[in-house]
Protein backbone atom coordinates (compact mmCIF):
# COMPACT_ATOMS: atom_id res chain seq x y z
CA UNK A 1 0.00 0.00 0.00
CA UNK A 2 1.19 3.54 0.84
CA UNK A 3 -0.28 6.58 -0.86
CA UNK A 4 1.44 9.23 -2.90
CA UNK A 5 0.19 12.68 -3.81
CA UNK A 6 2.18 15.26 -5.73
CA UNK A 7 1.19 18.59 -7.21
CA UNK A 8 3.18 20.87 -9.52
CA UNK A 9 1.77 24.32 -10.27
CA UNK A 10 1.85 25.70 -13.81
CA UNK A 11 0.27 29.05 -12.84
CA UNK A 12 0.76 31.46 -9.95
CA UNK A 13 -2.96 31.11 -9.17
CA UNK A 14 -2.38 27.44 -8.41
CA UNK A 15 0.76 28.23 -6.42
CA UNK A 16 -1.29 30.49 -4.14
CA UNK A 17 -3.29 27.59 -2.72
CA UNK A 18 -1.02 24.66 -3.52
CA UNK A 19 -0.72 23.61 0.14
CA UNK A 20 -4.48 23.46 0.57
CA UNK A 21 -4.81 21.38 -2.61
CA UNK A 22 -2.13 18.94 -1.45
CA UNK A 23 -3.93 18.63 1.89
CA UNK A 24 -7.16 17.79 0.06
CA UNK A 25 -5.27 15.15 -1.94
CA UNK A 26 -3.65 13.55 1.12
CA UNK A 27 -6.82 13.08 3.17
CA UNK A 28 -8.43 10.42 0.91
CA UNK A 29 -5.10 8.56 0.90
CA UNK A 30 -5.18 7.97 4.66
CA UNK A 31 -6.63 4.52 4.04
CA UNK A 32 -3.60 3.53 1.96
CA UNK A 33 -1.20 4.58 4.71
CA UNK A 34 -2.50 5.22 8.22
CA UNK A 35 0.87 4.83 9.97
CA UNK A 36 2.43 8.18 9.18
CA UNK A 37 2.36 11.05 6.75
CA UNK A 38 4.83 13.52 5.36
CA UNK A 39 5.15 16.34 2.89
CA UNK A 40 7.80 18.39 1.15
CA UNK A 41 6.96 21.86 -0.08
CA UNK A 42 9.09 23.97 -2.42
CA UNK A 43 8.78 27.72 -1.71
CA UNK A 44 10.51 30.98 -0.79
CA UNK A 45 14.10 30.35 -1.95
CA UNK A 46 16.82 31.61 0.37
CA UNK A 47 19.81 33.55 -1.05
CA UNK A 48 22.76 31.74 -2.60
CA UNK A 49 25.42 30.69 -0.11
CA UNK A 50 22.77 29.76 2.44
CA UNK A 51 20.27 26.94 2.83
CA UNK A 52 17.11 25.81 4.53
CA UNK A 53 17.46 22.68 6.63
CA UNK A 54 14.54 20.68 8.03
CA UNK A 55 15.36 19.04 11.37
CA UNK A 56 13.69 16.44 13.59
CA UNK A 57 14.40 15.80 17.25
CA UNK A 58 13.51 12.12 17.34
CA UNK A 59 13.66 12.03 21.15
CA UNK A 60 10.79 14.50 21.24
CA UNK A 61 12.73 16.82 23.53
CA UNK A 62 11.80 20.48 23.49
CA UNK A 63 14.76 21.60 21.44
CA UNK A 64 15.75 25.24 21.66
CA UNK A 65 15.94 25.73 17.91
CA UNK A 66 17.16 29.33 18.17
CA UNK A 67 20.16 28.18 20.22
CA UNK A 68 21.57 26.04 17.37
CA UNK A 69 23.19 29.06 15.75
CA UNK A 70 21.14 29.38 12.59
CA UNK A 71 20.46 32.66 10.84
CA UNK A 72 16.75 32.26 11.53
CA UNK A 73 14.14 29.75 12.64
CA UNK A 74 11.72 29.72 9.71
CA UNK A 75 9.20 27.43 11.39
CA UNK A 76 9.07 25.76 14.80
CA UNK A 77 6.75 22.76 15.21
CA UNK A 78 8.01 21.44 18.55
CA UNK A 79 9.99 18.35 17.62
CA UNK A 80 10.65 19.66 14.08
CA UNK A 81 11.83 22.95 12.64
CA UNK A 82 13.04 24.56 9.44
CA UNK A 83 16.15 26.67 9.90
CA UNK A 84 17.84 29.17 7.59
CA UNK A 85 21.59 28.53 7.82
CA UNK A 86 24.66 30.32 6.42
CA UNK A 87 26.02 27.24 4.66
CA UNK A 88 25.05 26.25 1.09
CA UNK A 89 25.16 22.59 2.24
CA UNK A 90 22.41 22.40 4.83
CA UNK A 91 23.05 18.72 5.56
CA UNK A 92 26.70 19.50 6.36
CA UNK A 93 25.60 22.36 8.62
CA UNK A 94 23.24 20.00 10.44
CA UNK A 95 25.93 17.36 10.93
CA UNK A 96 28.24 19.98 12.45
CA UNK A 97 25.79 22.03 14.51
CA UNK A 98 23.13 19.50 15.43
CA UNK A 99 24.62 16.01 15.22
CA UNK A 100 22.06 14.71 17.76
CA UNK A 101 19.17 15.65 15.46
CA UNK A 102 17.89 14.06 12.25
CA UNK A 103 18.19 16.21 9.14
CA UNK A 104 15.01 15.55 7.12
CA UNK A 105 16.28 17.46 4.12
CA UNK A 106 17.99 20.59 2.94
CA UNK A 107 18.21 22.94 0.00
CA UNK A 108 17.39 26.48 -0.99
CA UNK A 109 13.62 25.99 -1.41
CA UNK A 110 12.58 22.61 0.02
CA UNK A 111 11.01 22.16 3.45
CA UNK A 112 10.14 18.70 4.81
CA UNK A 113 7.69 17.78 7.57
CA UNK A 114 6.67 14.37 8.92
CA UNK A 115 4.23 13.14 11.50
CA UNK A 116 3.14 9.74 12.80
CA UNK A 117 -0.52 8.93 12.30
CA UNK A 118 -3.05 9.90 9.68
CA UNK A 119 -2.40 12.87 7.39
CA UNK A 120 -4.80 15.24 9.17
CA UNK A 121 -2.30 15.50 12.03
CA UNK A 122 0.48 16.49 9.63
CA UNK A 123 -1.74 18.93 7.74
CA UNK A 124 -2.68 20.76 10.94
CA UNK A 125 0.83 20.61 12.37
CA UNK A 126 2.58 22.20 9.38
CA UNK A 127 -0.27 24.55 8.51
CA UNK A 128 -0.25 22.98 5.08
CA UNK A 129 -3.53 24.59 4.05
CA UNK A 130 -2.01 28.06 4.28
CA UNK A 131 1.18 27.32 2.36
CA UNK A 132 1.93 28.90 -0.99
CA UNK A 133 4.39 26.80 -2.99
CA UNK A 134 5.48 26.04 -6.54
CA UNK A 135 5.25 22.27 -6.07
CA UNK A 136 4.89 19.74 -3.29
CA UNK A 137 4.99 16.02 -2.59
CA UNK A 138 3.07 14.09 0.06
CA UNK A 139 2.97 10.52 1.29
CA UNK A 140 0.86 8.34 3.55
CA UNK A 141 2.82 5.37 4.83
CA UNK A 142 1.84 1.79 5.55
CA UNK A 143 5.08 0.57 7.06
CA UNK A 144 6.46 -2.69 5.69
CA UNK A 145 10.21 -2.34 5.63
CA UNK A 146 11.22 -0.41 8.77
CA UNK A 147 9.73 0.85 12.00
CA UNK A 148 6.77 3.20 12.40
CA UNK A 149 8.70 6.22 13.63
CA UNK A 150 8.59 9.83 12.47
CA UNK A 151 12.06 9.53 10.96
CA UNK A 152 10.93 6.57 8.83
CA UNK A 153 8.16 8.60 7.20
CA UNK A 154 8.46 9.90 3.67
CA UNK A 155 9.48 12.12 1.89
CA UNK A 156 13.17 11.28 2.03
CA UNK A 157 15.91 13.72 1.20
CA UNK A 158 19.65 13.58 1.50
CA UNK A 159 20.02 17.24 0.52
CA UNK A 160 20.38 19.51 -2.52
CA UNK A 161 16.63 20.28 -2.73
CA UNK A 162 15.92 16.73 -3.90
CA UNK A 163 13.31 14.60 -2.22
CA UNK A 164 11.46 11.43 -3.04
CA UNK A 165 8.31 9.60 -2.03
CA UNK A 166 8.06 5.90 -2.74
CA UNK A 167 5.37 3.24 -2.87
CA UNK A 168 7.00 -0.18 -2.96
CA UNK A 169 10.24 -1.58 -1.60
CA UNK A 170 13.82 -1.90 -2.82
CA UNK A 171 15.82 -5.08 -2.47
CA UNK A 172 19.38 -3.85 -3.10
CA UNK A 173 19.33 -0.78 -0.86
CA UNK A 174 22.04 -2.03 1.51
CA UNK A 175 24.46 -2.40 -1.38
CA UNK A 176 23.66 1.05 -2.71
CA UNK A 177 23.74 2.68 0.74
CA UNK A 178 27.31 1.47 1.15
CA UNK A 179 28.30 2.58 -2.36
CA UNK A 180 26.70 5.99 -1.94
CA UNK A 181 28.38 6.57 1.43
CA UNK A 182 31.65 6.08 -0.42
CA UNK A 183 30.50 8.87 -2.74
CA UNK A 184 29.91 11.16 0.26
CA UNK A 185 26.15 10.82 0.57
CA UNK A 186 25.07 10.75 4.24
CA UNK A 187 22.07 8.69 5.38
CA UNK A 188 19.93 9.23 8.46
CA UNK A 189 18.10 5.89 8.55
CA UNK A 190 18.12 2.26 7.41
CA UNK A 191 15.18 2.93 5.14
CA UNK A 192 15.25 1.67 1.54
CA UNK A 193 13.54 4.76 0.10
CA UNK A 194 16.16 7.08 1.57
CA UNK A 195 18.72 5.21 -0.54
CA UNK A 196 16.76 6.01 -3.69
CA UNK A 197 16.79 9.70 -2.74
CA UNK A 198 20.54 9.52 -2.11
CA UNK A 199 21.09 7.71 -5.40
CA UNK A 200 19.34 10.45 -7.36
CA UNK A 201 21.20 13.19 -5.46
CA UNK A 202 24.48 11.48 -6.34
CA UNK A 203 23.56 11.22 -10.01
CA UNK A 204 22.54 14.91 -10.15
CA UNK A 205 25.85 15.87 -8.54
CA UNK A 206 27.58 13.77 -11.20
CA UNK A 207 25.92 15.88 -13.90
CA UNK A 208 22.86 13.87 -14.87
CA UNK A 209 19.60 15.74 -15.24
CA UNK A 210 16.62 14.30 -13.39
CA UNK A 211 15.42 12.29 -16.38
CA UNK A 212 18.88 10.80 -16.95
CA UNK A 213 19.26 9.98 -13.26
CA UNK A 214 15.92 8.16 -13.13
CA UNK A 215 16.61 6.28 -16.35
CA UNK A 216 19.92 5.11 -14.91
CA UNK A 217 18.05 4.12 -11.75
CA UNK A 218 15.96 1.68 -13.78
CA UNK A 219 19.00 -0.57 -14.09
CA UNK A 220 20.67 0.22 -10.73
CA UNK A 221 17.74 0.11 -8.29
CA UNK A 222 16.20 -3.34 -7.87
CA UNK A 223 12.76 -3.77 -6.40
CA UNK A 224 9.30 -2.49 -7.00
CA UNK A 225 8.41 1.13 -6.87
CA UNK A 226 6.40 4.07 -7.91
CA UNK A 227 8.58 7.14 -7.27
CA UNK A 228 7.57 10.78 -7.24
CA UNK A 229 10.56 13.10 -7.08
CA UNK A 230 10.82 16.83 -6.47
CA UNK A 231 13.80 19.06 -7.14
CA UNK A 232 14.29 22.82 -6.86
CA UNK A 233 12.62 23.37 -10.20
CA UNK A 234 11.36 19.99 -11.27
CA UNK A 235 9.01 17.12 -10.67
CA UNK A 236 9.19 13.57 -12.01
CA UNK A 237 7.42 10.23 -11.76
CA UNK A 238 8.79 6.75 -12.46
CA UNK A 239 7.29 3.28 -12.06
CA UNK A 240 9.40 0.14 -12.18
CA UNK A 241 9.18 -2.00 -15.37
CA UNK A 242 6.71 -4.44 -13.79
CA UNK A 243 4.49 -1.59 -12.56
CA UNK A 244 2.54 -3.35 -9.83
CA UNK A 245 2.27 -0.24 -7.70
CA UNK A 246 -0.55 2.04 -8.79
CA UNK A 247 -0.10 5.55 -10.15
CA UNK A 248 -2.12 8.09 -12.06
CA UNK A 249 -1.01 11.33 -13.64
CA UNK A 250 -3.31 14.22 -14.49
CA UNK A 251 -2.55 17.48 -16.24
CA UNK A 252 -4.42 20.69 -16.99
CA UNK A 253 -3.23 24.15 -18.08
CA UNK A 254 -2.95 25.00 -14.36
CA UNK A 255 -1.25 21.99 -12.78
CA UNK A 256 0.29 18.54 -13.06
CA UNK A 257 -0.73 16.05 -10.38
CA UNK A 258 0.24 12.51 -9.51
CA UNK A 259 -1.57 10.24 -7.07
CA UNK A 260 -1.88 6.58 -6.20
CA UNK A 261 -5.61 6.66 -6.83
CA UNK A 262 -8.11 8.85 -8.65
CA UNK A 263 -9.85 9.65 -5.34
CA UNK A 264 -6.92 11.94 -4.55
CA UNK A 265 -7.16 13.67 -7.93
CA UNK A 266 -10.95 14.09 -7.76
CA UNK A 267 -10.51 16.97 -5.28
CA UNK A 268 -8.55 19.16 -7.71
CA UNK A 269 -10.18 22.13 -9.48
CA UNK A 270 -10.74 21.45 -13.17
CA UNK A 271 -10.05 17.71 -12.87
CA UNK A 272 -13.17 16.96 -14.94
CA UNK A 273 -11.36 18.47 -17.94
CA UNK A 274 -7.90 17.12 -17.09
CA UNK A 275 -6.00 14.66 -19.17
CA UNK A 276 -5.76 11.63 -16.86
CA UNK A 277 -3.50 8.68 -17.63
CA UNK A 278 -1.63 5.82 -16.04
CA UNK A 279 2.15 6.28 -16.33
CA UNK A 280 3.66 3.45 -18.33
CA UNK A 281 6.11 0.95 -16.84
CA UNK A 282 9.73 2.09 -16.84
CA UNK A 283 8.91 5.47 -18.42
CA UNK A 284 10.17 8.71 -16.86
CA UNK A 285 7.67 11.58 -16.80
CA UNK A 286 9.18 14.96 -15.86
CA UNK A 287 8.24 18.62 -15.72
CA UNK A 288 10.25 21.74 -14.89
CA UNK A 289 8.99 25.25 -14.22
CA UNK A 290 11.58 26.54 -16.69
CA UNK A 291 10.03 24.43 -19.46
CA UNK A 292 6.44 25.21 -18.44
CA UNK A 293 6.98 28.99 -18.51
CA UNK A 294 9.20 28.91 -21.62
Amino acid at each position, binding site marked *: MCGIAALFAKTSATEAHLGALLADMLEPLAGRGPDSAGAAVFRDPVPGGSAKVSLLDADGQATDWAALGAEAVLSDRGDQAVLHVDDPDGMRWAAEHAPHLIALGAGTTMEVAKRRGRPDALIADMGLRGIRATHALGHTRMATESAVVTAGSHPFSTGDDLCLVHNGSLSNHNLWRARLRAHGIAFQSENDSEVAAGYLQWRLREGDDLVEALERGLSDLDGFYTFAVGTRDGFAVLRDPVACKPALLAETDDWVAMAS*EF*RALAVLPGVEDAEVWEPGPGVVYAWTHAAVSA
Partner: protein
Amino acid sequence: MSTLDAPSTVVTLDRVARTTRDVNAVLQAAADGHRFRIAGPAGEHALAAGLTARIDVEVDGHAGYYCAGMNQRASVRVRGNVGVGVAENMMSGRVEVAGDAGQSAAATAHGGLLVVRGSAAARCAISLKGADVVIAGSVGHASAFMAQKGRVLVLGDAGDGLGDSIYEARLYVRGDVAGLGADCVEKPMADDHRAEVGALLAEAGLTGVDASAIRRYGSARALYHWSTS
Protein backbone atom coordinates in the same frame (compact mmCIF):
# COMPACT_ATOMS: atom_id res chain seq x y z
CA MET B 1 -41.08 -1.69 -16.90
CA SER B 2 -38.89 -2.19 -19.88
CA THR B 3 -35.27 -1.22 -19.56
CA LEU B 4 -35.54 1.37 -22.27
CA ASP B 5 -38.45 3.50 -21.12
CA ALA B 6 -37.97 3.20 -17.36
CA PRO B 7 -36.99 6.49 -15.75
CA SER B 8 -33.44 6.65 -14.51
CA THR B 9 -32.93 6.95 -10.77
CA VAL B 10 -30.05 9.23 -9.87
CA VAL B 11 -28.02 7.94 -6.95
CA THR B 12 -25.65 10.65 -5.80
CA LEU B 13 -22.49 9.66 -4.07
CA ASP B 14 -21.04 12.45 -2.00
CA ARG B 15 -19.17 10.78 0.83
CA VAL B 16 -21.27 12.66 3.39
CA ALA B 17 -24.79 11.59 2.51
CA ARG B 18 -24.13 8.23 0.90
CA THR B 19 -21.32 5.75 1.08
CA THR B 20 -20.32 3.33 -1.66
CA ARG B 21 -21.92 0.60 0.43
CA ASP B 22 -25.26 2.48 0.47
CA VAL B 23 -25.13 2.98 -3.30
CA ASN B 24 -24.31 -0.66 -3.95
CA ALA B 25 -27.09 -1.79 -1.59
CA VAL B 26 -29.62 0.17 -3.66
CA LEU B 27 -28.30 -1.33 -6.90
CA GLN B 28 -28.09 -4.87 -5.51
CA ALA B 29 -31.73 -4.72 -4.28
CA ALA B 30 -33.15 -3.47 -7.58
CA ALA B 31 -35.34 -5.63 -9.80
CA ASP B 32 -34.73 -6.27 -13.48
CA GLY B 33 -35.38 -3.36 -15.79
CA HIS B 34 -34.46 -0.48 -13.48
CA ARG B 35 -32.07 2.21 -14.57
CA PHE B 36 -29.69 4.15 -12.35
CA ARG B 37 -27.18 6.92 -12.70
CA ILE B 38 -24.41 7.27 -10.10
CA ALA B 39 -23.51 10.95 -9.86
CA GLY B 40 -20.27 12.15 -8.31
CA PRO B 41 -18.34 8.86 -8.27
CA ALA B 42 -15.08 10.75 -7.54
CA GLY B 43 -12.91 7.68 -8.06
CA GLU B 44 -14.53 5.66 -5.27
CA HIS B 45 -13.73 1.94 -5.26
CA ALA B 46 -16.03 -1.05 -5.82
CA LEU B 47 -18.83 0.99 -7.37
CA ALA B 48 -21.61 -1.14 -8.88
CA ALA B 49 -19.89 -4.31 -7.70
CA GLY B 50 -21.76 -7.53 -7.10
CA LEU B 51 -24.84 -6.72 -9.19
CA THR B 52 -27.12 -9.64 -10.08
CA ALA B 53 -30.23 -8.14 -11.72
CA ARG B 54 -30.68 -7.11 -15.34
CA ILE B 55 -30.40 -3.40 -14.53
CA ASP B 56 -28.73 -0.53 -16.32
CA VAL B 57 -26.20 1.59 -14.42
CA GLU B 58 -24.40 4.67 -15.67
CA VAL B 59 -21.43 5.92 -13.63
CA ASP B 60 -21.17 9.63 -14.37
CA GLY B 61 -17.40 10.17 -14.02
CA HIS B 62 -14.21 8.36 -13.06
CA ALA B 63 -14.39 5.24 -10.88
CA GLY B 64 -11.74 3.58 -8.71
CA TYR B 65 -10.79 -0.06 -8.26
CA TYR B 66 -12.96 -3.12 -8.96
CA CYS B 67 -15.77 -1.17 -10.62
CA ALA B 68 -18.55 -3.59 -11.67
CA GLY B 69 -16.61 -6.46 -10.19
CA MET B 70 -18.35 -9.86 -10.08
CA ASN B 71 -21.04 -8.50 -12.38
CA GLN B 72 -23.95 -10.75 -13.34
CA ARG B 73 -26.54 -9.72 -15.95
CA ALA B 74 -26.31 -5.96 -15.30
CA SER B 75 -25.17 -3.43 -17.87
CA VAL B 76 -22.72 -0.86 -16.40
CA ARG B 77 -21.41 2.12 -18.37
CA VAL B 78 -18.69 4.38 -16.99
CA ARG B 79 -18.40 7.85 -18.53
CA GLY B 80 -14.76 8.19 -17.48
CA ASN B 81 -11.72 6.12 -16.52
CA VAL B 82 -11.63 3.18 -14.14
CA GLY B 83 -8.86 1.96 -11.83
CA VAL B 84 -7.54 -1.54 -11.20
CA GLY B 85 -9.73 -4.56 -11.83
CA VAL B 86 -12.79 -3.29 -13.70
CA ALA B 87 -15.25 -6.19 -14.28
CA GLU B 88 -12.95 -8.56 -12.44
CA ASN B 89 -14.55 -11.98 -12.15
CA MET B 90 -17.55 -10.85 -14.22
CA MET B 91 -19.97 -13.73 -14.80
CA SER B 92 -22.33 -12.20 -17.35
CA GLY B 93 -23.75 -8.86 -18.49
CA ARG B 94 -21.91 -5.97 -20.04
CA VAL B 95 -19.46 -3.35 -18.76
CA GLU B 96 -18.41 -0.45 -20.95
CA VAL B 97 -15.77 2.17 -20.11
CA ALA B 98 -15.64 5.40 -22.10
CA GLY B 99 -12.08 6.22 -21.04
CA ASP B 100 -9.08 4.16 -19.98
CA ALA B 101 -8.90 1.19 -17.63
CA GLY B 102 -6.22 0.47 -15.03
CA GLN B 103 -4.43 -2.83 -14.77
CA SER B 104 -6.07 -6.27 -14.51
CA ALA B 105 -9.24 -5.32 -16.39
CA ALA B 106 -11.61 -8.31 -16.64
CA ALA B 107 -9.24 -10.45 -14.55
CA THR B 108 -10.59 -14.02 -14.22
CA ALA B 109 -13.88 -12.97 -15.85
CA HIS B 110 -16.06 -16.00 -16.68
CA GLY B 111 -18.64 -14.45 -19.00
CA GLY B 112 -20.19 -11.25 -20.29
CA LEU B 113 -18.54 -8.48 -22.28
CA LEU B 114 -16.10 -5.74 -21.26
CA VAL B 115 -15.64 -2.89 -23.73
CA VAL B 116 -12.98 -0.24 -23.10
CA ARG B 117 -13.16 2.68 -25.53
CA GLY B 118 -9.73 3.93 -24.49
CA SER B 119 -6.76 1.79 -23.50
CA ALA B 120 -6.28 -0.79 -20.75
CA ALA B 121 -3.09 -1.01 -18.68
CA ALA B 122 -1.01 -4.07 -17.78
CA ARG B 123 -2.43 -7.54 -17.19
CA CYS B 124 -5.66 -6.98 -19.11
CA ALA B 125 -7.73 -10.21 -19.18
CA ILE B 126 -5.29 -12.00 -16.89
CA SER B 127 -6.50 -15.55 -16.22
CA LEU B 128 -9.54 -14.91 -18.40
CA LYS B 129 -12.06 -17.73 -17.94
CA GLY B 130 -14.63 -17.16 -20.67
CA ALA B 131 -15.61 -13.49 -20.99
CA ASP B 132 -15.20 -11.36 -24.09
CA VAL B 133 -12.94 -8.32 -23.85
CA VAL B 134 -12.82 -5.62 -26.53
CA ILE B 135 -10.28 -2.82 -26.14
CA ALA B 136 -10.48 0.00 -28.70
CA GLY B 137 -7.04 1.30 -27.69
CA SER B 138 -3.98 -0.62 -26.53
CA VAL B 139 -3.23 -3.01 -23.68
CA GLY B 140 -0.19 -3.08 -21.39
CA HIS B 141 2.32 -5.81 -20.65
CA ALA B 142 1.44 -9.32 -19.46
CA SER B 143 -2.06 -9.12 -20.91
CA ALA B 144 -3.99 -12.40 -21.25
CA PHE B 145 -1.48 -14.09 -18.94
CA MET B 146 -2.67 -17.68 -18.36
CA ALA B 147 -5.94 -16.85 -20.13
CA GLN B 148 -7.98 -20.01 -20.24
CA LYS B 149 -11.13 -19.29 -22.24
CA GLY B 150 -12.85 -16.36 -23.92
CA ARG B 151 -11.90 -13.82 -26.56
CA VAL B 152 -9.75 -10.68 -26.38
CA LEU B 153 -9.84 -8.15 -29.22
CA VAL B 154 -7.36 -5.24 -29.13
CA LEU B 155 -7.56 -2.62 -31.86
CA GLY B 156 -4.35 -0.87 -30.79
CA ASP B 157 -1.05 -2.37 -29.67
CA ALA B 158 -0.22 -4.99 -27.04
CA GLY B 159 2.63 -4.68 -24.53
CA ASP B 160 5.36 -7.23 -23.91
CA GLY B 161 4.60 -10.79 -22.85
CA LEU B 162 1.18 -11.08 -24.51
CA GLY B 163 -0.55 -14.37 -23.73
CA ASP B 164 2.21 -15.81 -21.57
CA SER B 165 1.36 -19.41 -20.57
CA ILE B 166 -1.98 -19.07 -22.33
CA TYR B 167 -4.48 -21.93 -22.45
CA GLU B 168 -7.40 -21.77 -24.90
CA ALA B 169 -8.40 -18.09 -24.92
CA ARG B 170 -8.35 -16.53 -28.39
CA LEU B 171 -6.49 -13.26 -28.88
CA TYR B 172 -6.89 -10.78 -31.75
CA VAL B 173 -4.64 -7.72 -32.05
CA ARG B 174 -4.71 -5.16 -34.85
CA GLY B 175 -1.59 -3.18 -33.91
CA ASP B 176 1.93 -4.10 -32.91
CA VAL B 177 2.68 -6.74 -30.30
CA ALA B 178 5.78 -5.76 -28.33
CA GLY B 179 6.48 -9.41 -27.59
CA LEU B 180 4.69 -12.71 -27.16
CA GLY B 181 4.86 -14.54 -23.83
CA ALA B 182 5.94 -18.14 -23.35
CA ASP B 183 3.96 -20.60 -25.48
CA CYS B 184 1.95 -17.87 -27.23
CA VAL B 185 2.18 -17.90 -31.03
CA GLU B 186 0.61 -16.20 -33.99
CA LYS B 187 -1.99 -18.32 -35.77
CA PRO B 188 -3.55 -17.92 -39.21
CA MET B 189 -6.77 -15.93 -39.66
CA ALA B 190 -9.44 -18.04 -41.37
CA ASP B 191 -12.94 -17.00 -42.39
CA ASP B 192 -14.47 -18.17 -39.13
CA HIS B 193 -11.95 -16.03 -37.21
CA ARG B 194 -12.83 -12.99 -39.33
CA ALA B 195 -16.48 -13.68 -38.61
CA GLU B 196 -15.71 -13.94 -34.90
CA VAL B 197 -13.93 -10.56 -34.96
CA GLY B 198 -16.86 -9.03 -36.83
CA ALA B 199 -19.32 -10.36 -34.26
CA LEU B 200 -17.20 -9.03 -31.37
CA LEU B 201 -17.01 -5.57 -32.96
CA ALA B 202 -20.77 -5.56 -33.52
CA GLU B 203 -21.46 -6.67 -29.97
CA ALA B 204 -19.13 -3.95 -28.69
CA GLY B 205 -20.89 -1.34 -30.82
CA LEU B 206 -17.69 -0.39 -32.65
CA THR B 207 -18.53 0.52 -36.22
CA GLY B 208 -16.40 1.52 -39.18
CA VAL B 209 -13.41 -0.45 -37.93
CA ASP B 210 -10.90 -1.61 -40.53
CA ALA B 211 -10.38 -5.19 -39.39
CA SER B 212 -8.10 -6.24 -42.26
CA ALA B 213 -4.87 -5.93 -40.24
CA ILE B 214 -6.10 -7.95 -37.25
CA ARG B 215 -3.92 -10.95 -36.42
CA ARG B 216 -4.71 -13.92 -34.24
CA TYR B 217 -2.64 -15.31 -31.36
CA GLY B 218 -3.10 -18.34 -29.14
CA SER B 219 -1.47 -21.24 -27.37
CA ALA B 220 1.19 -23.38 -29.02
CA ARG B 221 0.15 -25.98 -26.41
CA ALA B 222 3.80 -26.84 -25.81
CA LEU B 223 3.45 -26.21 -22.08
CA TYR B 224 0.50 -28.56 -21.71
CA HIS B 225 2.78 -31.54 -21.15
CA TRP B 226 6.00 -31.88 -19.22
CA SER B 227 9.02 -32.14 -21.43
CA THR B 228 12.58 -32.71 -20.33
CA SER B 229 14.06 -31.59 -23.64
